[in-house]
């Protein structure tokens, strides 16, 4: 029974990490589109290169954070969360399991 519960926890963590990492797809596409349009703007008005580059860097940094959030959550779910969840489950079983049996 405990093995099944641990298996469900690990599967949940794996699926959750996979779902969190989907968030990394959007920023890549969005950043590409933003840079392409900014390049077009620089092509039309080369004198605005400095201002456009500054704005583009800030925009890309903001867009990228979404992917980073997903990455951090995914890594926490894979490497940190299973240990915490399984530990909590074992403690709960030790505490309440004995009470339920008696």
């Amino acid at each position, binding site marked *: 029974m405990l093995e099944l519960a641990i298996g469900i926890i690990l599967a949940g963590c794996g699926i959750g990490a996979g779902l969190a990492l989907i968030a990394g797809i959007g920023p*890549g596409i969005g950043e590409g589109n933003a840079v392409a349009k900014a*390049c077009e703007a620089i*092509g039309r008005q080369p004198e605005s290169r400095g201002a456009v*580059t500054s704005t583009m*860097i800030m925009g*890309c940094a903001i867009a990228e954070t979404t992917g980073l959030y997903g990455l*951090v959550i995914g890594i*926490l779910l894979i490497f940190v969360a299973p240990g915490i969840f399984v530990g909590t489950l074992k403690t709960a079983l030790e505490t309440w399991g004995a009470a339920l049996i008696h």
Partner: protein
Amino acid sequence: MKVQPAVRQETARIAAGTAVLTVIMVAVFLILGRFDWTVITGALLGYLAAVGNFFLMALTVQKAADEMKPTGAPDPIETDGDEAEEKDVPLSEDAKRGKQRIQLSYTLRMFGLAAIAILGVTLPCFNSVAVLLPMLFPRIVIALRGALQSSKH
């Protein structure tokens, strides 16, 4: 490749802001009584990863902008009374190359950050929270800067 002043300036601002937030994070560890030397090594690794990632992204953007040749094309936004409508103009070859460059750079940088984060979480000489948190600080610095600028105006 020569680093443009805009890139240098923005990276310096982000590095300074992230450093301040990292110091605050270490102080919070100290206040909570969870401070040890792994917090320092973790904070250092996370700070370097965050600033390095930002600098590499800025360099890629600069390279994409540098490779763009002047097209001399007219502005595609035409104002018709109060309404502004944007025409769907196909991208030039230089713009397409810039788009592919930033998308490739994003993928590679994410792999690098993932590798650093995994190292930080698995190795016992780094505190995992102290590694992961500074990676999110550049966004906070940008938001704070925006808020400060808007409050000035």
